């Protein structure tokens, strides 16, 4: 099987189109985030939070759940950009994000066609696929109405950072080494990609959750609020973000479990043993254990709940190390997957 250079070039062209579209989307969302504010200037009555886990107290007056936005409130006077323009920017951004995802998928699909195999045989392809899953998962989250559109700013930021990292490890389209030539690549790597992409979105929401929570705490005691906590007034309540984060992790965790099991079955076929504490196996295991701890931490009362988002952050840090650290700096059996 040889590489078709025309298709490989087309894949790279689609990649560039995707980056441009995502850049447009990011700009549009930034405008919407900054200027389309309808923050209530009148102190709303403090709402008692009745969540299953028990509320932590009244919401701060300014800190309004964005689902309850008051359409009648007059838009504040903002320099340059009107409220209507800002909303328009958000709509354009949404279109650019969806088109970007299409270009993203095309880039991956064309690469698959160029080499006649699954498009995830090296680290570059893996990261491109993970960020595609992240974008699709995020679009689903927005479409389901879990979060407001303007928060896509942060998902786009995470995606673009990932893709930027992908370009640092760009690899020419090429066929696979024999060890990867197995139908298990479709199963194991696909599961790892989907799980990683959903964890990535979970990371975005958990960071927003932490910012929102910190903002609420600071404003409750009238402390000085600095970046990034200044993002707080426009974020949903931490409790709401907490539930979204939880759902995303609940989705990703079984997928991750499955990816590891499929990897172990494949390892048995190609390396002769199902588990050998190879560095990639070690770090996959560590990530699994950390995310398992996240899922458990919410069942251990107040202290556990407080720490839960931080455990999720550590989980994503481990995932990133597993992807970049292990592939680039540690010698192991996965190294031959090619950087």
């Amino acid at each position, binding site marked *: *099987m040889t590489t078709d250079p025309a298709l490989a070039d087309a894949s790279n062209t689609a990649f560039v189109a995707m980056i441009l579209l995502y850049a447009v989307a990011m700009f549009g969302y930034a405008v919407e985030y900054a200027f389309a504010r309808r923050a209530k200037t009148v102190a709303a009555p403090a709402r008692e939070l009745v969540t*299953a*886990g028990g509320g932590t107290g009244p919401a701060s007056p300014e800190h309004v759940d964005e689902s309850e936005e008051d359409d009648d409130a007059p838009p504040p006077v903002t320099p340059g950009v009107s409220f209507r323009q800002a909303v328009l920017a958000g709509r354009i951004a949404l279109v650019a994000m969806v088109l970007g995802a299409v270009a993203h998928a095309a880039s991956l699909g064309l690469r698959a066609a160029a080499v006649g195999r699954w498009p995830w045989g090296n680290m570059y392809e893996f990261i491109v696929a993970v960020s595609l899953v992240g974008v699709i998962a995020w679009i689903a989250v927005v479409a389901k109405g879990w979060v407001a559109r303007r928060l896509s700013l942060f998902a786009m930021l995470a995606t673009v950072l990932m893709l930027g990292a992908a370009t640092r490890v760009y690899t020419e389209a*090429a*066929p*696979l*080494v*024999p*060890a990867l*030539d*197995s139908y*298990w690549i479709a199963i194991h790597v696909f599961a790892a990609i989907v799980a990683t992409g959903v964890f990535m979105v979970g990371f975005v929401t958990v960071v927003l959750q932490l910012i929102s929570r910190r903002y609420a705490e600071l404003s409750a005691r009238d402390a000085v609020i600095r970046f990034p906590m200044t993002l707080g007034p426009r974020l949903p309540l931490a409790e709401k973000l907490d*539930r979204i984060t*939880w759902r995303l992790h*609940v989705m990703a*965790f*079984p997928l991750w*479990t*499955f990816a590891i*099991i499929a990897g*172990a*079955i*494949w390892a*048995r*076929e*190609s*390396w*002769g*043993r*199902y*588990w*050998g*504490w*190879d*560095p990639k196996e*070690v*770090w996959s*295991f*560590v990530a699994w*254990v*950390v995310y*398992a*701890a996240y*899922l*458990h*931490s919410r*069942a*251990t*009362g107040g*202290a*556990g709940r407080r720490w839960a988002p931080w*455990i999720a952050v550590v989980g994503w840090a*481990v995932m990133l190390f597993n992807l970049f650290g*292990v592939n680039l700096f*540690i*010698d*192991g059996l996965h190294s031959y997957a090619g950087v």
Partner: protein
Amino acid sequence: MTSSAPRRKIVATLRRWWRQLTSMRTALVLLLILAVAAVPGSLLPQRSLNIEQVRAYYEANPDLAPVVDRLWGFDVYASPWFAAVYLLLFTSLIGCLVPRLRDHVKSLRTPPPQAPARMSLLPQHRELPERLDPDRVAKVLRHNRFRVTTRTTDAGVTLSAEKGYLREAGNLLFHFSLLGLLVGMAYGSLYGWYGNRILVAGEDGAFCNTLQQYDEYGLGPNVDSTDLPPFCLQLDDFTAKFLDNGQPTDFIADVRYGQGGEAPQDTYRLEVNHPLELDGASVFLLGHGYAPVISYTDRYGVTQVSTTAFLAQDAQLTSTGAAVFPDANVDPETGEADPDAEVAFEGILMPTTPEQPPFTTSVSPEADNPGLMLVTYRGDTGLDDGQPQSVYSVDAEQIADGSLEVVDIEPKVLSLGESMELDDGTTVTFEDLVPYATLQVREDPGELFVLGSAVAILAGLLPALIVKRRRVWVRVTDGGTEMGGLARTEYDGFAEEFDRIGDALSHARGERPKTKIGIES
């Protein structure tokens, strides 16, 4: 009398510790410790993965290495401290699971509990003006896979319904399967074994499954060397295909095997990802390389041939290795050996020799233009005194103490069939190049059990995370019908489900609802 008080105290303390150990918080902390404990094994070289790297670490850090070693740093996953963490975790798990299993069995046997007296205090509550038929209500709830109990009192009829038992069942299955996984792994390491072998193509390379035949092996504590299944293996041919840049695309080892002690006769196409299953053991293709055939004709005109595997050093299969002739220059008339005239060669093999110097690295992994560059040693090879030596290099100690000396001749790249004359008139010839395959033979009797546990882990995980446990009560009195609902686990969609049930019930007076409500079972 006097001794019972302290004893009670000890029991109380132990009980407190046990409760502490089996608490969720302890399990959580142990989980995080386990994650941290696993890390050093990926940063330090591990004996089980690559003993050469451990040796290199010793050389690079002569002071630190013994300390690391004493802390089991090179055997992290076999270390007592790693075992301590996971055994504590599993003890905590058992202590947590057994009561939960008991409770779950009990809850399966007891009907859903009585409705609270004031249902209006429940998170979900609804009143219907009409008086519903309790049988119909029970039917609708059952149809929606609730467990339903009907209790009749003077005040009216109360139905208690509960659903989502699968959550706890899945949870228990998941956690017990984790234990199963550990048991399966332990069983496999007690009763399993493996051996690695470099198999050179041709009949001479054939071997049968005994420990002496392996270059490296490991036996589980409960396995005896006589337990190994009697099979024999031979490599007929090895084919490797490469792209122009040297990246391999296919490895095919055509092997011949015989089971039950028979000579190799059946053939099999052994490939990566396509192991050969033999008498319970599996044969895996792990790698490949080339073995040069080197002949040496000594002072008496006696020719000896050596075929030894050279080990690949890079992706282009530049390989290094040695050929040792301890019986060289033995006078055929007297049979007398000259201990200082033994001969050994060490060299670099290039499957494709570059056109231009330096002739040190191959330019392609394919054997297009093989070249062999040899360094010759003469003297005492040290092989006669029975010391184990690496077959891939000439013994460095013999060179260091002067027993072996380099024969000073112009270095030369031998191409296939070419000979080189040494200073004493003897000759060395690069006769042939044959491929070899690196095989691993392994038997792990715990494997299937581990696989089953892994599948059960996943099967338990899904309901444990997705299913929600919830209760619904319906009280029918003369004045009308009252409903109440409670989600026992975090469940955002419960209000909607409760509403849908309420709607369905008020329709249920007449006929059965056609559609089922509440997709979450």
